[in-house]
């Protein structure tokens, strides 16, 4: 059984966001080993984990769908520049429209439907009460630009990477729940440039290997990897743009509130080659789980403790955990029998 979308909860102000027991069970827990280390960790994006798993479908629609779409609308209303597409990315945007509409309508026929007669397409999103007819490839036939239009109907951030000169360029995206990076600033950057601030991985040759691997990905062979950080409060929009508003929350973690206040933030990142533009669609689907919900799974609790305890100092600083990392490790230690 898949979890159905539930009523809207908030990722800001009163933070009413919560996970059901089913959502906790299907959470994409990222640590495969006790000791944390860097790796490219990519695998084919194929179904895994059976029915209801976060990896069952190409795009995961879960109980937070309506909440995340409401949050995205709030971000874009306030900061329209959080969605941008350079002029040469128009075709890539339409590639994405097709990829998302086709996979959503095939995987979730109760929620989404798509009818195609040549270039005349009819799209219905029953969850958001959207029903539109448009001409595929003609941006003037949609009520808003294609990336904006489809991005507001699917969970997760999306970046479209232009491939040229043996490199990938961040030339379009709809980024409303980033783990502390700015699309407005990083727009147009090459693969290594936009990863510029990441510590350790450059000298370990990780980005060279990753880029070589990514530019060779063919159409129809998407890959995925997991990334993670810790977020204070269930805040989706941990963007630099808003850092002056949320940064102080990092000083609010205490031994008493750490379990409910600190969330493991996991990104399931999928890279998928687009057929017309040869661009790469890079989807970043974010999941949030409070530590007190996480430790209800005994295995995760132990592993989480060990991964956090062995996290190298440069990564603690880079991920912005410096102020509360110790409190997290202390809290988790009570669940580790070897401690």
């Amino acid at each position, binding site marked *: 059984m898949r979890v159905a979308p539930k009523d809207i909860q908030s990722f800001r102000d009163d933070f009413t966001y919560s996970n059901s027991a089913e959502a906790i069970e299907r959470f994409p827990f990222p640590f495969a080993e006790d000791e944390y280390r860097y790796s490219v960790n990519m695998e084919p994006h194929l179904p895994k984990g059976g029915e209801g798993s976060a990896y069952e479908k190409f795009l995961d629609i879960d109980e937070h769908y309506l909440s995340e779409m409401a949050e995205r609308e709030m971000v874009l209303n306030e900061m329209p520049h959080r969605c941008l597409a350079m002029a040469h990315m128009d075709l890539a945007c339409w590639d994405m429209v097709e990829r998302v509409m086709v996979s959503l309508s095939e995987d979730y026929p109760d929620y989404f439907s798509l009818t195609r007669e040549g270039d005349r397409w009819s799209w219905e999103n029953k969850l958001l009460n959207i029903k539109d007819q448009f001409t595929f490839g003609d941006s003037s036939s949609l009520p808003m630009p294609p990336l904006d239009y489809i991005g507001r109907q699917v969970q997760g951030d999306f970046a479209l990477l232009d491939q040229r000169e043996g490199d990938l360029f961040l030339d379009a995206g709809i980024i409303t729940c980033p783990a502390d990076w700015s699309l407005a600033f990083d727009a147009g950057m090459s693969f290594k440039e936009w990863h510029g601030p990441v510590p350790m991985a450059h000298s370990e040759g990780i980005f060279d290997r990753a880029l070589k691997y990514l530019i060779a990905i063919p159409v129809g062979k998407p890959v995925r990897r997991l990334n993670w950080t810790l977020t204070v409060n269930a805040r989706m929009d941990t963007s630099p*743009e808003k850092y002056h508003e949320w940064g102080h929350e990092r000083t609010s973690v205490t031994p008493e509130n750490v379990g409910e206040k600190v969330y493991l933030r996991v990104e399931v990142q999928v890279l998928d080659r687009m057929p017309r533009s040869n661009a790469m669609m890079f989807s970043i689907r974010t999941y949030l789980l409070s530590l007190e919900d996480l430790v209800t799974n005994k295995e995760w609790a132990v592993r989480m403790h060990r991964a956090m305890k062995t996290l190298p100092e440069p990564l603690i600083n880079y991920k912005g955990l410096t102020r509360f990392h110790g409190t997290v490790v202390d809290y988790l230690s009570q669940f580790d029998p070897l401690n």
Partner: protein
Amino acid sequence: MQTEQSNGVVSKPVYQPVELNPKSSFHLFIAEQNVTPAMQSLYDHCLKDKKVTVSSDASDPELLKSLACFPLVGTLYLAGTEPFIWRVASYARQAGLRPDQMLMMTPVTRERHLFCCHCYQITEGVTYSPFICAGCGLSLEVTDHFARLHSAYFGYQANAEDRANLPERREVS
């Protein structure tokens, strides 16, 4: 936030000593305001077809015209402040020049342009961190993360996590 590492942020440009490209049959030297001694020396040693343009404005129509008809066998040499160099380079890219056709000389000052991630304004003449944003007035931490498109470095509020605790002032190079 994105903190700087002792091993360096990869997006920060590194300027190598510039030599004449021996394979090139046309050499265009563009300098901001003054031809630097290093560029003058290159120019004097260049025995092929060559031209110097001095301009204080990267979007100077004459300058853009010379980029628009730039030959495939040409090499472009750039001298001036970092924002000027990268702005001209960005126009040159739009005009179809390849990255290997552009040689950038070490910027004449260490002044940076700083992009505020909160209000998107660019503050000029930045030599130390934290630096007050000319747009929103916040004290910004000056990072080494550089965007060629903005010709600017990334800045974020230095004391957002603890208002009472502003990092000590340090020079940036």
